[in-house]
């Protein structure tokens, strides 16, 4: 039961890491890049498949050469091998061009039983790349997956997915494409699975330390794809402008109280009580 997990590097939005410019736009140069937090769910999903059904888990990302660190971070959760698709000609891609590139990388690895992606990246937040990659590969896709099981004999995956305030149970034939929801949980009900989980987790952390042995970087020339479909050339959209969101006009006139002054705080409480009672 082979899997490919698609991962992405994003700016580290944690306090103390993220850096904004004076106009409140992101200072990309000064903000470190980390594994997209939502991708952890996709990695845990692939790990659960490995624990229960064996096979191989390949990690794939597209980005500059230093994204190797992203793949290493991902491999600490789980990965048997990692591939980075990296080429200047892939740069500036929008979601459709990214989907074309990833689909080509997947074809080169060989379409596995399951491809798993996380729900939307913390930077672009489009949530488009997963479904578009599935579409390019003409695979059945299940999005917002919170739980799933694979039936090896019937060659199917049964998944529970969130649809607003409803949970839908769906079934698709393998190979299939899953997009995990942030609410995804892997379940290990059998003791032998929990033991296997522990063993595989230890192994993958060691493997991540020496990632070079299982790491490949592919350029555009390595991929079975029409160069016109990738990078800037393959992107229908452009970002014409990035501006800080304007500060809203004054709508209410705040009464101001000093928090370090007991009398003013008492007055603040009184004012709140009056306003609420009005």
């Amino acid at each position: 039961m082979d899997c490919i997990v698609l991962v992405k590097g994003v700016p580290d939005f944690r306090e103390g890491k993220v850096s904004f410019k004076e106009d409140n736009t992101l200072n990309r140069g000064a903000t470190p890049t980390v594994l997209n937090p939502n991708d952890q769910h996709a990695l845990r999903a692939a790990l659960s498949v490995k624990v229960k059904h064996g096979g191989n888990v390949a990690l794939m990302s597209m980005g500059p050469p230093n994204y190797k660190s992203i793949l290493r971070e991902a491999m600490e959760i789980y990965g048997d091998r990692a591939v980075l698709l990296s080429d200047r000609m892939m740069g500036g891609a929008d979601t459709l061009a990214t989907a074309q590139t990833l689909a080509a990388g997947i074809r080169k690895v060989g379409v596995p039983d399951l491809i798993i992606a996380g729900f939307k990246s913390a930077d672009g937040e489009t949530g488009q790349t997963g479904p578009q990659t599935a579409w390019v590969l003409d695979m059945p896709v299940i999005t917002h997956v919170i739980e799933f099981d694979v039936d090896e004999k019937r060659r199917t995956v049964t998944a529970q997915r969130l649809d607003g305030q409803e949970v839908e149970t769906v079934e698709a034939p393998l190979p299939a494409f899953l997009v995990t929801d942030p609410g995804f949980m892997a379940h290990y009900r059998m003791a032998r699975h929990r033991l296997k989980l522990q063993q595989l987790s230890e192994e993958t952390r060691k493997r991540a330390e020496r990632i070079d042995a299982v790491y490949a970087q592919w350029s555009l020339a390595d991929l079975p794809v029409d160069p016109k479909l990738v990078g800037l050339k393959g992107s229908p959209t452009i970002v014409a402008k990035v501006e800080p969101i304007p500060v809203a006009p004054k709508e209410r006139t705040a009464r101001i109280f000093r928090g370090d002054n007991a009398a003013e705080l008492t007055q603040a409480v009184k004012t709140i009580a009056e306003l609420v009672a009005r």
Partner: protein
Amino acid sequence: MSKGNHRDMWVFCEQNRGEFVPVTLEMLGEARRLMDKYNADYKESEKVVAVVMGHHIDALAQSAIEHGADVVYTCDHAELEHFRLEPYTKLLAKAATGKDAYKTYDKPHYFLFPATNNGRDLSATAMAALESGLASDCNLLYIQDIPIKHPVKTRRGEAIEEIVYPRILHMKRPDFSGFEWSTILCIDDPDKDFHPQACSVIPGSFKPLQRTAGRKGQRINVTMDLPPQAMRVKTLKRERLPIEVDLARPEVVVAVGRGIQKNPTLGVKLGLELAQALGGDLGISRGVVTSKYPVDASLTQFTKEARQIGETGQMVKPRLYIALGISGAIQHKKGMDKSRVIVAINPDETAPIKEFSDVFIKGDLFDVVPKIKDQLAPVVKGNGGLPSTRKGGK
């Protein structure tokens, strides 16, 4: 530069169990406004075209017309009762690329989708199928000509020229926790058309039109004729979930923001205690969601996205809203600025939230909250929101 023939603004009208989700009517209203202006500006007569899929959807088709559509494409079939990504995508692409009693052009000029879970997924696969581009989660749209210089789009041989692209849908989306606003354009290449220009629309961004009962429009039926291959993802069961966190209900909402960073566990705990003391519930800002502050395991349920207040989270308008350490990015403001009374506790008097607060307490939430909690509780009592206060069965 555009070689194909493109017309109209299409709108995918999402419905659930026979009712449009609210953003559907908001999109129809905005499409109407955009195309009325477009037709006046460019002396055209392009239309608003609604796409409605489901089962037993006659009333919905009429409702789409009465809310601003000129033409409605319907696909009515038992297999389509609930949203299904693959068949919906294929049928939508068929309608958008085919010719019929109404449509003689190649592809829609523009396309709007709801930025809901299903709408976003459909926008992605539909635009992959139509080989065009889209911007996700937009909250401002307008159509105008724009001069562009771009290394690929406007390259003519070795030279990069400035070219004026006419009638471009400008799609603006808030990025990065609501601080940046990007303008996304879908632009033709020298050798390839990219149409429709598409986007998904954040719920609550636009106003629906007043319904015009009896408004007439043209209806086109799309035949459900997909091969079994397109139905390969099968629905086995659907169950309704109890609402996990409904912050629209309590009369008091206390929300915490990035101001909790120096001690996230204590910050969340203080917010929670204040909310409980006031009989309300706890919300969080987008910043808390994206920052992934480490908090004590017993409190992680309170820092989940389900509690996020703002444009991309829950919209609340309680009797009393107390913002602890929240700067007041526009993203957050949209989710709470209709609250009756807004109180902000923030050490930074220049924080934008001051401009839409009734009471501003200049101070650190860690100092102020313990001091005012007990004073505030007897004078302000909400209707209960937290599970622990809900037991009274109010």
